[in-house]
């Protein structure tokens, strides 16, 4: 799963710490999501999408080829 969290966050000029606090997770989780190491739950994905005022599919891109 690829995502645009890092670019959207930088666009909005929000720190990882602040984003983590807003969506209710640790900074390490935001780092892992941005690096593509961790796929968030649907609840967390919704929270992130809501914060950036975007649809989930605009932020998280499912890549079937990479998944297989």
């Amino acid at each position: 799963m690829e995502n645009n969290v890092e670019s959207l966050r930088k666009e909005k000029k929000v720190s990882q710490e602040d984003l983590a606090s807003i969506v209710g997770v640790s900074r390490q989780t935001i780092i892992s999501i941005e690096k593509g190491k961790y796929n968030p739950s649907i609840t967390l994905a919704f929270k992130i999408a809501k914060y950036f005022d975007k649809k989930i599919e605009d932020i998280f891109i499912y890549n079937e080829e990479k998944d297989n």
Partner: protein
Amino acid sequence: MNKLKANILWNALLFLLPVGLIILGVVTNNEPVLGLGILMGAIMLIKLIRLILCWMKPKTREKYLNRVNDERVNYIAGKSAIVSYIFMEFSSLAILIYAIAMELSTLQTILSGIMCIGLFAYMITYFILSKKE
């Protein structure tokens, strides 16, 4: 009640255990029990004070709650628990084979019992959690 308050209450309740050990150690004049009670009490008291201090500062409280509610932390904890469980079961199996080879019957019985309880507990927990979620 949030997780921090629940943790404080739980730790305060658990603090009765070292207190009990200290009383038991003093009454029976048993120094190892008294020492264990003091050691456990000191560790638990430090943890309790840390939690209370965390609860008193709003920013630290929020950070703490974000950390304990963090889904990645819970995911990692679950994964490491299952890996540790598998490791423990295989270690027990290795020691059990050694006990059989060395004809250590008491160790064989204890290890077989522990392994059976472990596997049974895993099955029961899995069944309960699968019904819940």
